[in-house]
């Protein structure tokens, strides 16, 4: 008997969704419920650096220099706007990851229950592809803007740092969009074969 071709991705999708739910749902709940009235809000600022040669506890070898890059800015009397920005900077990536895991699980479920070469699978694959492409750009930009705004609210001369885009995720998204087109052709061929005697 032929092995189920969907078996490897089924396991990955189930595990990814389960772990994502376990890790993110409590986090999201806590952040959204209790995240808007935190007194202290902190943000990383990589623009500051200093000589760290005098730091205690670091035994430097000959010719080795120590630099401290980045500081942590904290506001002990955070406003609601700062709370919102902090929430946005933390929740965006989590929502993107959770959404990706769900859309992958949904795609695999359609392929398992309705067959791999079906219009539902093509649509689910295209949706996941677009989610990854758009999310790979939007999520880092959103986080970058929120952190930038937070830094600007704490120090006057906050420097803008361009976000790092997850290139692998972006390529995966475009790959899925391409495969969705190939699958659409395959789906039509499968439909034709059903009527071939």
């Amino acid at each position, binding site marked *: 008997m032929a092995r189920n071709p969907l078996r490897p991705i089924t396991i990955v999708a189930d595990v990814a969704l389960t772990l994502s739910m376990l890790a993110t749902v409590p986090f999201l709940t806590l952040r959204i419920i209790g995240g808007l009235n935190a007194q202290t809000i902190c943000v990383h600022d990589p623009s500051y650096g200093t000589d760290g040669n005098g730091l205690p506890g670091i035994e430097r070898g000959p010719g080795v220099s120590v630099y401290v890059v980045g500081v942590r800015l904290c506001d002990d009397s955070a406003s609601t706007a700062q709370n919102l920005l902090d929430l946005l900077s933390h929740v965006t990536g989590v929502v993107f990851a959770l959404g990706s895991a769900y859309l992958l699980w949904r795609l695999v479920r359609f392929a398992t229950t309705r067959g791999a070469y079906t219009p539902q699978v093509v649509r689910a694959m295209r949706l996941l592809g677009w989610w990854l492409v758009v999310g790979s750009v939007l999520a880092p930009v959103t986080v970058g803007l929120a952190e930038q705004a937070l830094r600007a609210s704490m120090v006057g001369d906050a420097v803008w740092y361009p976000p790092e885009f997850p290139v692998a995720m972006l390529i995966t998204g475009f790959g899925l969009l391409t495969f969705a087109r190939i699958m659409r052709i395959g789906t039509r061929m499968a*439909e*034709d074969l*059903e*009527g*071939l*005697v």
Partner: protein
Amino acid sequence: MSPAEVEHHAIAVHLDELLKARGMTLAELADRVGVTNVNLSILKNGRAKAIRFSTLTKLCEVLECQPGDLLTYEPPAL
């Protein structure tokens, strides 16, 4: 598949008449041709989208007929 995507054709299949003339059942023909009952039924009811030359060959062999006896073009009435 949506109705709009169903390919229209004007080919009539005369499997019923040939079976009657040969005194043969659909199951017997399916067995001798080597296709499933379901597929032969799809062909008989005009729901097939295409037929393999190998299937047509076997059908003609078993039914002792020509492809034209099995399939005819029937132009739609104007």
